[in-house]
């Protein structure tokens, strides 16, 4: 009996702790949004973060996109050709990328590369008392350090997703048309007939925008909340990647259910 009570008590404490942390994260987001004027007025700070988050993620995004597109075409052709529908491979590649793989994979790659870097950076600044020093000099670290990194991520994310989709389609083209020999005209025309600007591309971009907010928020919060020790920073970095991945996939499901319901 005592064991059961003990278990329930610990479960309650755990849930309490989680909810308290979530509440703290929400207040943190609110303060960050409130002080975002700095990110706008000191634009070079934000631009610097777009460089570190976005530009430096270009290589990994481009290479991954190319291979994903090529694999889609390869696998897609293999199955479609059995139904005599090999010319639909362009449609398959484009829709998969634009609706799902572009936003989701770009977000996952972003979280692993840029998100973890942001968490580590902020966490280390906290551990070496740089954030406290800034506060003592009456400069709000949330406005100056956290804000630009958050907005840098939010701005970079949709761009990276679009680049992922575009390069992926190109990769699909390389395999399907250039390598396998699907008809050039059919490839593009069938694709264009099936992919709708508003409901497919724009929805995909909307997804990536939401992912961008989620991942950037998680990254800066974990860094800011990290224990100021080496172990604490390392754990925070891992948390960023893991929590981002789960949240991205959850959000993807929710958004897809909303956006792509049977017409």
């Amino acid at each position, binding site marked *: 009996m005592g064991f059961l009570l003990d278990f329930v008590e610990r479960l309650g404490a755990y849930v309490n702790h989680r909810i308290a942390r979530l509440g703290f994260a929400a207040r943190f987001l609110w303060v960050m949004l409130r002080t975002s004027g700095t990110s706008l007025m000191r634009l070079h700070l934000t631009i610097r973060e777009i*460089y570190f988050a976005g530009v430096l993620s270009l290589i990994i995004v481009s290479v991954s996109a190319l291979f994903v597109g090529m694999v889609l075409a390869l696998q897609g052709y293999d199955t479609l050709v059995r139904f005599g529908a090999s010319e639909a491979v362009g449609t398959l590649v484009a829709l998969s990328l634009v609706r799902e793989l572009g936003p989701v994979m770009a977000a996952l790659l972003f979280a692993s590369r840029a998100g973890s870097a942001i968490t580590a950076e902020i966490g280390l600044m906290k551990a070496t008392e740089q954030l406290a020093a800034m506060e003592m000099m009456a400069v709000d670290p949330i406005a100056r350090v956290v804000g630009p990194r958050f907005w840098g991520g939010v701005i970079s994310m949709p761009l990276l997703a679009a680049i992922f989709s575009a390069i992926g389609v190109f990769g699909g083209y390389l395999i399907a048309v250039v390598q396998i020999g699907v008809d050039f005209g059919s490839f593009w025309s069938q*694709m264009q007939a099936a992919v709708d*600007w508003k409901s497919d591309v724009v929805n995909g971009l909307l997804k990536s925008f939401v992912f961008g907010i989620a991942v950037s928020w998680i990254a800066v919060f974990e860094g800011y909340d990290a224990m100021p020790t080496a172990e604490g920073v390392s754990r925070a970095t891992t948390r960023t990647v893991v929590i981002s991945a789960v949240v991205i996939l959850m959000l993807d499901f929710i958004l897809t259910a909303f956006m792509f319901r049977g017409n």
Partner: protein
Amino acid sequence: MMSRKAIDVWVGFFVLIGIGALMFLALQVASDSQAFTNGAGYKVQARFENIGGLKVRAPVRSAGVVVGRVDDIRYDNETFEAVVTMTLDQRFKFPKDTAAKVLTSGLLGEQYVGLSPGGDLDDLQDGDTIKITQSAIVLENLIGQFLYSKASGDDQAPAQ
């Protein structure tokens, strides 16, 4: 550590590539189905006994060319009919006695509304209703008809 100028250049480059990707997606990959709705079209209605698998945003074709989109599909509980509202491209005028049929593209493809123009001198205006309609062909009914006619046909096999 890069100078501020170098960073600005790279970020500008990055944004350009991003926009380029978007343009590629917009022009080469996708097509805009809402090109002529919201402004450059006029709305007409048609009532069907059965619309089959017709969905909103399905194309409206005439002679095989897309001339409009299905906007809205409702059910009239009084007349027990489906009421389909569609937007037609402003550029194309159709006579008042045009017929609207629910057709299937290909054998098992998506359903769309096909328009067969009549010969009336007056054209359909915004808000008009198409009077002549043909419902979708439902496979089960077709099979039922076939079996029935087969059965009665056999009975009437000329024995003379």
